[in-house]
């Protein structure tokens, strides 16, 4: 019969070593806990929202507009104040221009919003009543122009739209009158970032 000698010191040290390696293995083991499982792993639009959205996905959505990351973030935002705080911070740090929520005196829908060095105007389409023109004008465009508009309404959602600015600092696009982005832009309590 074979045997392995044991010393008391080795056992004591082994207890620590075992404990930390066991815990490290638990932390890095394959995730087989249903409650922790991220079910979204492809572009299936029917994917379930993940239980947790990481910082990389948040960055990918805000900075590069990655659509899959966007679905994950948008699905996870409601009821997740930590994620919302992180989103807000990332937007504040990445956006060169901001159109903050309006003063408390504002009431009802707004069709023009003025930020520092920029303005946003909503104008109904004459040709198609279901559509609205959104025009953004930068007063002193310099350096890197924004590539996206991010609207963060008070309901905990987020809307994103890619932008393409002219050399004079103007960007224009059309939204559906009843769409979530238009509704968000009308809401005086929506924070708008140009990142």
């Amino acid at each position, binding site marked *: 019969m*074979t045997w392995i000698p*044991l010393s008391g010191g*080795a056992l004591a*040290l082994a207890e620590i070593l075992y404990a930390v390696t066991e815990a490290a*293995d638990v*932390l*890095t083991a394959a995730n087989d806990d249903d409650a922790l499982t991220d079910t979204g792993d492809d572009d299936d639009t029917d994917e379930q929202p993940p239980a947790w959205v*990481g910082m990389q996905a948040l960055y*990918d959505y805000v900075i590069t507009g990655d659509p899959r990351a966007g679905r994950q973030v948008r699905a996870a935002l409601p009821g997740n104040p930590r994620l919302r705080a992180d989103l807000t911070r990332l937007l504040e740090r990445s956006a060169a221009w901001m159109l903050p929520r309006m003063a408390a005196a504002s009431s009802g829908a707004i069709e023009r919003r003025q930020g520092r060095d920029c303005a946003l105007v909503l104008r109904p389409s004459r040709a198609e009543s279901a559509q609205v023109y959104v025009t953004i004008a930068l007063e002193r465009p310099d350096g890197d122009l924004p590539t996206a508009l991010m609207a963060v309404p008070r309901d905990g959602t987020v809307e994103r739209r890619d932008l393409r600015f002219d050399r004079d600092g103007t960007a224009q696009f059309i939204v559906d009158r009843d769409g979530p982005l238009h509704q968000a832009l009308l809401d005086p309590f929506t924070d708008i970032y140009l990142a």
Partner: protein
Amino acid sequence: MNGKMSPQAGWPDAALRQVFHTVADATANGRRKFSDDTMRDVARRVVCRSYGPMLLELAHLVRAAALGGRRRLTYEWLFWGSGPGVPSAYAAAFTRATLSTQLIERDVSEVRLKYPGHAFAISYGRMPVLGALMEVLSEALGYAAVNDIVIPVCHANVDADTVVEVANALSRAFYDYLKDRLAAPTEQSQFRSLTAFLAARSDNSADGLLDDDAVFGFWRANCHDDSAGFRTFDNVCAAFNRLIETVEAAGRVTALEGAHTLGGDAEAGEIDPDRFKAEVMEECFAAMDDVRGRASTDEDGPPLAVLAAPPADAVKFLTDSEMRLLDVVYRDTTLAERLPLSALRRAMFGALQRRLTAAVKRAATADERAALIDGEPGEDYAGRLDALMRLAGQAGDRARASLHVLAMAGMDEAMALLLALAPDIDLTPLHGHNVADSDDSTVHDGVAEAALARFLSAPQDPTVVGAVIAAVVTDAHRRRRSVRRDGFGENAPADAHAAGGPRMVAVARDTETFVRRAKSAVPDAAARFAADRAAFAETFRSLYLAGATP
């Protein structure tokens, strides 16, 4: 992972596990951002709270990123905008960055931060683990909270003290986060129950022995306690496999003498990991890796896993029943190597216990269960070892068959397989003189290339490759013809054989080694089996017949 016990419920807690899973699942450029090794490294440091030095490095890395010339997202661009968490990606990111050379320098291997009277270098190789730690911190504390802490190092004029203050602030915040989530390792009751059993078995003396009797005795003493997780001999073997790995790693650590005095209350057996020196832990980890690495017989991964995966799985190198037979060799390799009798017991009586468990689940009668327990075994230890030796021989035959496939296909891998099968074979006929005599590597490579071409041009022709090599390949051809299974015929997939052939050499070698060890450990195999059968049957009766409906 070999022999892992079930994790203690709630330790580490679910939120912390989620943090690590989120970071581990993060993707960049369509692939997992951080490697398993990187994640394991960070997890270990977090669990044993030896992340302090890393946080200082991380604070410096944030500073380095902030010197990358970005007006916005001053440091985030490096951690989340530079692609996969690999050294080359970080190197490329710094290469693209516009750096102020007054404050930071870069070269092919590192960046060097310049502070008044001080400098700090961070290699690109170090950055993946720091990037993963940043991601763990951001998931645990929140990006906004981490941002608040690290912003001071992003300002224009920063001295080294500021970086240290930021690192300390990160450490405090992370410590607060972890304090309720990482219980003391002393709560690892499963492991402690093993060590306590061993200590008691050696009359509480400082030293003792870990042997097959300890494994079996522990199972008999604990199998009736459903809450302990040791009901099956299978689980006990897995636990002891881990114990052996851990004890051997601990035994290699030079600082062993002080190990048992590290705790806050050593007399009570309390061990406080916070007081455990990080450098000792690093030695432990290195030793653990070494022990586990030794247990792994193939640097490309366990042979059975390679054989079961593409491209090797295009060939039926092993049947399912052969795979199951090899379980005794490859499952929990440390146990198989050090306590082969326990591995054999597990292979035979552990399998019987699994059938009994299934019988209980289907509400089999007591008579049916008793028939399983007392039924005539199909084979004993000697029979099982004989079967393994036959399989080792067949594995060798199939490896030789692969050699013929590769040689006929003109694949370079044929030469490596030839040398694996016949390590001492004389290659002189392939190049006319002994290349080992030459110290010039260029000459050596050129000659080796010519020898390979010569070998592949006519591998069975003795006038080209010499009589010995030709005989080996001819024998391989004969063995190939005798293998009657998919993948060895005329259209044999060469890439599958290139992957699988060397693993079959390993299977043959590892199996023979196990059988040799087992025969040495159990010289009286017949008597041992009879005694074990009676002892296991007695315990099985107490586990599975008490209270069962006749």
